[in-house]
């Protein structure tokens, strides 16, 4: 017999919890849902565009009735639960239904607060909460002329805007002298007010309502100062009150909201609660992003996986009034000791303010130009040290021109046919379409449905921006920590720390310790764990080929036709006639269809059949070559220029140093690919300043540069320091690599890593702290003992033959 789960409240948080639960464990419960409204689950956020005539009710349905049926959920709409019988473990409804439960989920949302002034109960006085309210407003707009909206917050202004779009004459009454004071500071609020006024909206600021006038139906509003205005419709948007009546009557502990712990459990352990009705660590929330986070946690516990924790959220806000761009997040009013960065252009009607404490963003208000809102919010949540780009941060991310955040911010302006994901050929239009028609809120959803950002990931920032601009702040960007993958709730950092502290030395140990949901893990976490274990326990952990992507398993790059490419290593790009001849012979022997000199100064042989790989490597290995690891999250190439031996500008032996660096570092597995270069003088022919580690030789020594990359978004390196000898170059290089190997997340290149942890942090560890540098270098050399085994040679000698030999059968 399945356990019975009853959901009270068919709204955004409750149904999202069910969706998450079905993903985790579709079979566990027999589910019944009660919703007081007559609709299936819809996107409440989008009521404002519905009111403004930009969308229809059908457009905003998130789960239609068929969805409930397909998932075996019994849905009762238009029937409110009126009593919870906790002793008898059942709920009773207004229409007399009685349904037993094993677990109960409360998601009753909130009610608009109606100010109890005389006349508040007249016809024509409403809140702005559900489809019925929108219908009332649309009806009124047809018949009447004048509307008053009480409350100049987010909701009030969206209501006022919608009514205005429907031809009404709208006055907004606000108690404070600042509009949206919970989200805006005075300068931004004034800009907002001015532009709404330009559209025809009227304001009565610092005005307190004392009475709704009229007989039977509202006809006017009277204020505390005795003045009055006409009004056929009064919308109260002065705040919401968590809907706790039902829970309270059942004796469940409530304060402002239904009190829950970090697992979203109420004081009755059989009863969970999520959404606006909830109070968690003293906080209530009124935006969907945190509610979705709660939903995830509740689902995790309902599925009895029992490891997720909700730890509160930082939220950001945007106003959904067409033509007005406004963004706010965090502590946007500075406290003593904070610094504020402001960029204001009254001519353009734009205003940007960042509140900064200890070089970290604490809050942001943007008006007019909000395109960087997502980026600032990301920096805020990640607690990123901004000192490296503080001087230009207000100009926005595009001004940085870096790869680190990989974010193209002018996304709203892109045409629909702009290709966003080059890997999977997905255009902006397709992504927007999927978000709208399938009701997607999270990056993972978009990845799953469109494949955008699911391959190389470099367009993730773009996709996030599209999400943010398409669904407004409903976009679920809140997770304060990103789990490594869907198999776990733990982040990369937590897992890396756990592997070290608890000496977890096998994949099963890691998965067991962190209570993986999936005993085998998945294609995302297996390679990551394999890397973390290799990096942490050199010589002890045995590489697991089945947890590597095919390129690393077959030691070659799989091409689109299923063949492979082979790139022998040419140390420092130097080569001899014998080597070239050997490569040419191999190419002839295996009929390689195409060869190319790569940008990494070696030779790529394309179109090799998998079965031929071991034989070809055997020949190459006998000629003295090792693998170039052109396929791996590993050390790729060391690019060098001509240098002092030949070039008239050369100051040092860049080629010789390049060879030494490559001999030191080849074979090393990395979180991501890693490239080096050495230029013989500041003319920098080897492009050392867009490498993970670059050396630029000067007369007096060697400049060391870190954290650069080419790619979709180029990032130029930061200058780490200058050293005097080749030995020092090797030591600093090895130490930097080891720091990166030990601390970066899998699939994080040095550029975003350096930006995430802060350049100063890296510099401190490598340059200022000599003991740490030497220790890192020693650890690197130790691990290289086990890494510098040529995988080609090993295979040529018989390792993993099954990987390469097909089993042939002829027709039976």
């Amino acid at each position, binding site marked *: 017999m399945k356990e019975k789960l009853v959901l009270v409240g068919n709204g955004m948080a409750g149904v999202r919890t069910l969706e998450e639960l079905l993903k985790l464990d579709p079979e566990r419960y027999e589910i019944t849902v009660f919703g007081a409204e007559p609709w299936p689950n819809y996107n409440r956020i989008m009521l404002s565009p519905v009111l403004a005539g930009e969308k229809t009710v059908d457009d905003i349905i998130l789960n239609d009735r068929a969805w409930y049926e397909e998932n075996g959920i019994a849905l009762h709409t238009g029937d409110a639960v009126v009593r919870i019988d906790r002793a008898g473990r059942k709920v009773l409804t207004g229409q007399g239904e009685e349904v037993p439960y094993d677990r109960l989920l409360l998601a009753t949302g909130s009610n608009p607060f109606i100010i109890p002034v005389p006349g508040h109960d007249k016809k024509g006085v409403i809140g702005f909460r559900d489809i019925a309210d929108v219908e009332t407003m649309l009806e009124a707009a047809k018949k009447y002329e004048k509307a008053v909206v009480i409350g100049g917050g987010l909701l009030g202004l969206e209501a006022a805007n919608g009514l205005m779009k429907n031809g009404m004459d709208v006055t907004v009454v606000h108690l404070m002298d600042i509009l949206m004071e919970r989200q805006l500071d005075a300068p931004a609020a004034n800009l907002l007010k001015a532009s709404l006024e330009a559209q025809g909206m009227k304001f009565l600021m610092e005005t307190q309502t004392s009475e709704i006038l009229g007989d039977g139906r509202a006809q006017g509003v009277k204020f505390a100062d005795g003045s009055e205005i006409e009004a056929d419709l009064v919308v109260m948007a002065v705040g919401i009150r968590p809907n706790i009546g039902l829970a309270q009557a059942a004796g469940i502990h409530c304060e402002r909201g239904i009190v829950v712990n970090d697992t979203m459990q109420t004081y009755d352990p059989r009863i969970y609660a999520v959404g606006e009705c909830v109070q968690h660590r003293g906080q209530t929330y009124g935006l969907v992003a945190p509610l979705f986070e709660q939903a995830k946690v509740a689902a995790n516990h309902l599925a009895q996986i029992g490891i997720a924790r909700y730890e509160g959220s930082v939220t950001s806000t945007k106003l959904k009034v067409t033509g007005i761009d406004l963004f706010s997040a965090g502590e946007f009013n500075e406290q003593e000791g904070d610094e504020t960065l402001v960029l204001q252009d009254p001519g353009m009607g734009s205003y940007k303010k960042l509140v900064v404490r200890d070089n970290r963003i604490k809050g942001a208000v943007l008006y007019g130009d909000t395109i960087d809102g997502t980026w600032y919010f990301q920096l805020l949540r990640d607690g990123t040290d901004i000192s490296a780009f503080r001087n230009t941060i207000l100009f926005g991310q595009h001004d940085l021109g870096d790869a680190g955040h990989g974010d193209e911010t002018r996304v709203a302006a892109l045409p629909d046919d702009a290709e966003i994901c080059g890997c999977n050929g997905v255009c902006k239009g397709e992504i927007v379409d999927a978000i709208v028609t399938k009701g997607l809120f999270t990056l993972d959803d978009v990845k799953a449905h469109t*494949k955008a950002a699911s391959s190389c990931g470099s367009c993730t920032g773009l996709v996030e921006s599209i999400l943010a601009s398409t669904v407004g702040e409903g976009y679920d960007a809140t997770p304060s920590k990103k789990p490594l993958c869907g198999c776990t709730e733990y982040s990369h950092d937590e897992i890396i720390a756990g592997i070290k502290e608890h000496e977890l030395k096998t994949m099963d140990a890691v998965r067991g310790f962190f209570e993986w949901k999936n005993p*085998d893990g998945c294609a995302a976490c*297996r390679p990551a764990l394999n890397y973390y274990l290799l990096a942490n326990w050199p010589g002890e952990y045995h590489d697991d080929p089945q947890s590597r992507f095919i390129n690393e398993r*077959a030691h070659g790059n799989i091409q689109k036709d299923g063949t492979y490419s082979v790139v022998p290593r040419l140390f420092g790009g130097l080569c001899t006639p014998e080597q070239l001849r050997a490569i040419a012979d191999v190419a002839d022997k295996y009929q390689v269809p195409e060869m190319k000199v790569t940008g990494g100064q070696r030779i790529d042989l394309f179109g090799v059949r998998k079965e031929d790989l071991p034989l070809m490597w055997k020949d190459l290995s006998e000629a003295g070559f090792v693998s170039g690891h052109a396929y791996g999250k590993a050390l790729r190439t060391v690019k060098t220029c001509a240098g002092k031996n030949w070039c008239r500008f050369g100051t040092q032996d860049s080629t010789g140093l390049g060879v030494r660096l490559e001999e030191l570092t080849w074979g090393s597995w990395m979180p991501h690919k890693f490239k080096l270069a050495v230029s013989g003088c500041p003319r920098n022919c080897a492009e050392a300043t867009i490498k993970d580690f670059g050396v630029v030789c000067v007369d007096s020594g060697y400049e060391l540069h870190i954290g650069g990359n080419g790619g979709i978004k180029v990032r130029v390196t930061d200058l780490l320091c200058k050293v005097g000898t080749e030995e020092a170059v090797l030591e600093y290089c090895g130490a930097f690599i080891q720091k990166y190997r030990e601390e970066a997340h899998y699939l994080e290149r040095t550029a975003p890593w350096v930006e995430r942890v802060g350049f100063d942090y890296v510099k401190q560890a490598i340059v200022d702290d000599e003991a740490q540098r030497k220790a890192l270098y020693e650890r690197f050399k130790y691990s290289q003992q086990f890494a510098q085994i040529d995988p080609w040679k090993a295979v040529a000698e018989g390792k993993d033959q*099954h990987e390469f030999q097909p*089993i042939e*059968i002829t*027709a039976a």
Partner: protein
Amino acid sequence: MNNWIEIAALEDIPRLGSRVVKTDTMNVAVFRTRDDQVFALKDECPHKQGPLSQGIVSGTTVTCPLHNWKIDLDSGCATGPDEGCTNAFRTKVENGKVYLSI
């Protein structure tokens, strides 16, 4: 009707891995799970014919190496939001030998 063909010893297929079986008409990918179940699929992803044999196996699914579709080993069908199926073939393991029926 079953035409059982012996293709390999169970040990010849790595756990959570696969082998390719070449037939006259196509390649078949034969997978072995952690608990030694064996499955066989036509070695062509329903998306763009990626070689499923080269993917990462977890539970009873394999993730295609080209664009990460997740294919159910038993049915040959894509899981999650993706749609499409490749052919699935019957297998059996007896006395440590793997048999395939095409």
